[in-house]
């Protein structure tokens, strides 16, 4: 095992706990039924108390909202429903005042078909912006490229009746792909990023990164030319805005993701997509194998880089990075109803996925916060919000934040009919049962538990910056690992089983240390030569600080 040393430079993103939120969903300050920046600003104390220290905002730009804002029509402004640029600046200042970093979404790959750039591009073959998108006379190019939204789209080419030619789109047909072979596009997108960086944002989550460049004969993913685009952006970022961060959204296998870190000269962070479904699989199977195997296959990354881990986000629980057998198991285990499935994934929130089992919710969060990487928590999951699978697409996991049991869950003063999306009303997850106000009043609520575990996580840099060594006890229901940074060592032991378990750990390497349980500061016996016996209740986990005293 290599003991990690504290990396040099500003690595705030390695110490962060990210909270993902869509402005629209969080709090409506003006009673129009839609969340806005002023509303988000008013809830900053809540986020500070929760203990997160970075916010990742989903797209808030002007957009026809046919893909929840991932279809941007203007990169330099704020959607009028969410407020103004001034509102954004105020929110940003408010966040920074609380030492909370702000990461915004940057959709590089495509725009809305309503974006003026596309309107100009399609207007004539001679238009200067004609070459800003990928056009063709036929729909036969790049046949090896897969279709991402296969439940909706039949082809990656769409016919444009205006310019009477086909345009390329890797996502919805109303989202034409930008042409990154055109230097003007690369320059323009840097200008967009520069605009927001100058306002003070701390980082970007770059959407759909693998798809930036297309080449015939390939699957048009992860191409060297795409990496060149990233490197160019990173170079400019470091040169003009040191300390800012790029986070990659690339749903790929770890080995294919590794190049996105380059030699520390592309992304600072990337989501670890294959790990997430395997955490769910491990708990369902009561077997650590899926988790340890994927982490064994995860390559080393440069010291300044970091994996970003998550349990749930605004998209479906993607099953792309699974074998057919694993995918089938996940669907049968977590999405028995066909309506719960979307594309190659499961469109459900954390609590319903885990059958609202508090022990499993805690265990999954415990792993999220102790495995190597920066955790990202999806808004509402800290109180165990439910979903509405009767809403289309992924909207079922994007319902209004449940602040209280009162009018519109305390989200908005508007008439309920005006809300951008209906509230969750069901007896288990409905806002009268699941809301921030009631959980704040209950000492042992999930919300308060989350705040406590986030505080413990932040009490040390080991989780964010340390190395990991897996122990392989003979009991395969137990997932155990040692995190280490400098002289600090933490032992994490998770019971993935629904039943009580006993495990013997070989801790001879740490002989002489005593174990201090990190939540209660309880002292456990000193490690000796013999196997260290621990017993667990169902889904129980321990974080131990090892101390040689």
């Amino acid at each position, binding site marked *: 095992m290599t003991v990690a040393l504290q990396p040099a430079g500003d690595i705030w993103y390695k110490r962060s706990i990210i909270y993902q939120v869509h402005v629209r969903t969080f709090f409506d300050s003006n009673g129009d039924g839609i969340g806005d920046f002023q509303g988000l600003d008013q809830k900053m104390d809540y986020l500070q108390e929760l203990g997160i220290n970075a916010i990742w905002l989903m797209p808030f730009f002007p957009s026809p909202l046919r893909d929840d804002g991932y279809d941007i029509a203007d990169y330099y402004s704020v959607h009028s429903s969410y407020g103004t640029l001034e509102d954004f600046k105020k929110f940003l200042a408010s966040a920074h005042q609380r030492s909370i970093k702000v990461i915004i979404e940057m959709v590089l790959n495509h725009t809305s078909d309503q974006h003026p750039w596309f309107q100009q591009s399609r207007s004539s073959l001679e238009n200067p912006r004609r070459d800003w998108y990928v056009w063709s006379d036929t729909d036969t190019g790049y046949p090896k490229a897969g279709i991402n939204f296969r439940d909706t789209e039949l082809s990656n080419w769409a016919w444009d009746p205006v310019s009477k030619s086909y345009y390329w789109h890797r996502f919805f047909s109303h989202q034409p792909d930008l042409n990154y072979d055109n230097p003007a596009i690369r320059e323009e997108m840097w200008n967009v990023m520069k605009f927001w960086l100058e306002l003070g944002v701390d980082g970007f989550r770059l959407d759909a990164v693998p798809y930036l460049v297309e080449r015939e004969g390939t699957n048009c993913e992860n191409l060297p030319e795409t990496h060149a685009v990233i490197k160019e952006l990173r170079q400019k970022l470091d040169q003009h805005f040191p300390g800012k961060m790029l986070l990659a959204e690339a749903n790929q296998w770890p080995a294919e993701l590794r190049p996105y870190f380059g030699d520390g000269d592309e992304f600072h962070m990337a989501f670890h997509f294959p790990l997430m479904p395997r955490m769910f699989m491990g708990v369902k199977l009561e077997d650590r194998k899926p988790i340890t195997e994927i982490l064994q296959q995860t390559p080393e990354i440069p010291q300044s880089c970091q994996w970003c881990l998550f349990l749930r986000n605004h998209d479906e629980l993607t099953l792309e990075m699974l074998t057919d057998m694993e995918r089938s198991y996940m669907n049968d285990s977590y999405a028995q109803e066909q309506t719960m499935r979307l594309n190659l994934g499961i469109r459900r929130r954390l609590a319903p996925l885990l059958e609202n089992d508090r022990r499993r919710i805690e265990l999954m969060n415990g792993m999220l916060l102790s495995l190597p990487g920066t955790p990202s928590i999806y808004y509402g999951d800290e109180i165990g919000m439910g979903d509405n699978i009767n809403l289309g697409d992924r909207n079922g996991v994007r319902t209004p934040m449940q602040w209280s049991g009162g009018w519109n869950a305390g989200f908005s003063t508007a008439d309920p009919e005006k809300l951008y999306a209906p509230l969750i009303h069901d007896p288990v997850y409905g806002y009268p049962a699941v809301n921030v106000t009631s959980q704040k009043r209950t000492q042992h609520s999930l919300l308060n538990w989350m705040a406590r575990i986030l505080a413990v996580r932040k009490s040390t840099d080991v989780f964010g910056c340390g190395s990991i060594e897996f122990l392989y006890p*003979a009991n395969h229901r137990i997932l155990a690992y040692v995190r280490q940074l400098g002289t600090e060592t933490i032992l994490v032991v998770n019971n993935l089983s629904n039943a009580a378990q006993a*495990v013997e750990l070989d801790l001879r390497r740490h002989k002489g240390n005593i174990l201090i349980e990190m939540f209660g500061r309880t002292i456990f016996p000193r490690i000796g030569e013999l196997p260290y016996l621990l017993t667990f209740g169902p889904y129980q986990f321990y974080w131990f600080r090892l101390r040689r005293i």
Partner: protein
Amino acid sequence: MKKVRTADDSILTDEFLRQLMNVGEVDLLVGLPTHNNSSTIGPIVATIQAGLLAFFPRDRAVIINVDGGSQDGTRQLVLNAAIDDARGSKISALRTLPVISTQYAGSPARGTALRSILAAAELLGAKACMVVSPESTQIQTDWLTKLLGPVYAREFDLVLPTYSRHRFDGILLTNLLYPMTRALYGLRIREPYALDFAFSGSLGSQFLSQNPWQDETARAGSETYFTLHAIAAQSRICQSFLGNREHVERRASDLVPALRQTVGALFSSLGPNMALWKSRAESKRITTTGPEREFTLEPLRVNRKRLREMFSTGVGELESVFQSILSPPTLEELRRIAGLDEAEFRYPAELWVKTIYEFAAAYQKSVISRDHILQALAPLFRGRAFTFLLENRNGSADTVENNIETLCLEFEREKPYLLEIWNGRE
């Protein structure tokens, strides 16, 4: 030899118990009793692993090797089949497949091995269990689903195999075990002495709690005992056709142990289960997946002359023993046929059935040592085997099957005779 540690009255060694704790609750358990089987065990365990992955990829399974003290690396070969994250594996599997191995205390004995497997199955809460013989080199992956499947689906408690065998393979089975079990217990179980079989966890626990292990016969013939227990408990029993079973050459000295393991167990079962077999008037088929039986007909060299000689010698030498066991007419008839030359020699079905029933009654009464009774049966069985080989020398598969059926009917027809001498002796 390494000393095996157990708690005072436990069959489980401390080390085995520790391994079981680590495995935890399972759905499926495959037990492998071994003793110096390194020449065959590797491919067998690989096939079991492949079968579990192919047919039960989502289910919690374990392979448990119960070894009688192998010195040839058998246990290590079994352990190699484990799929776990610590060792890494190129095999794509959803979950860990634990493989554990233990050495039981005492000398190698199938009964002790089966007892350990049953104890493990109960502790692990296995829903369906399967035992595979270390000699089953012809095992295929689909054996896993054919044997475990009906149990796991909760349709049956015991799944026994049927095979495609050479017509002269398993003469003890076709001339005694099958027809007698069928006649007495009323179920047409083709392989009542099976080394590859599957059973439900509840049946295993039930058998374990009967604690038959004190009885030497039960220890030797545990598989037969197990089947008979299932019959007596009126468990749901079915058969699955597993395909070819290779002919294994047996030495003459193997016969008496085989008789102890099978006929001994069958005879032993009759006393406690008399009420059951007495009430069964006829036999019925049991659910069978695939054919009940297939025969292969390729030429096979058998020293028939030696069989007849051993019969005649045995009848002469064991005269006084037979006087204790057999009725005078039966013994007289045996003396008569023992004097026939090879061309004329024939041990007819009627006489064979009477002989067996008289042996069974004598066994029940323990007229002499039960083991001596079983040993005395050996030369007579050889005489019957001679006749069976002769009668089916040029027979087709149908002819062989018809001859076996005729013998079965003879056992059924003569059942009142058994009751008569059973009651009479009592």
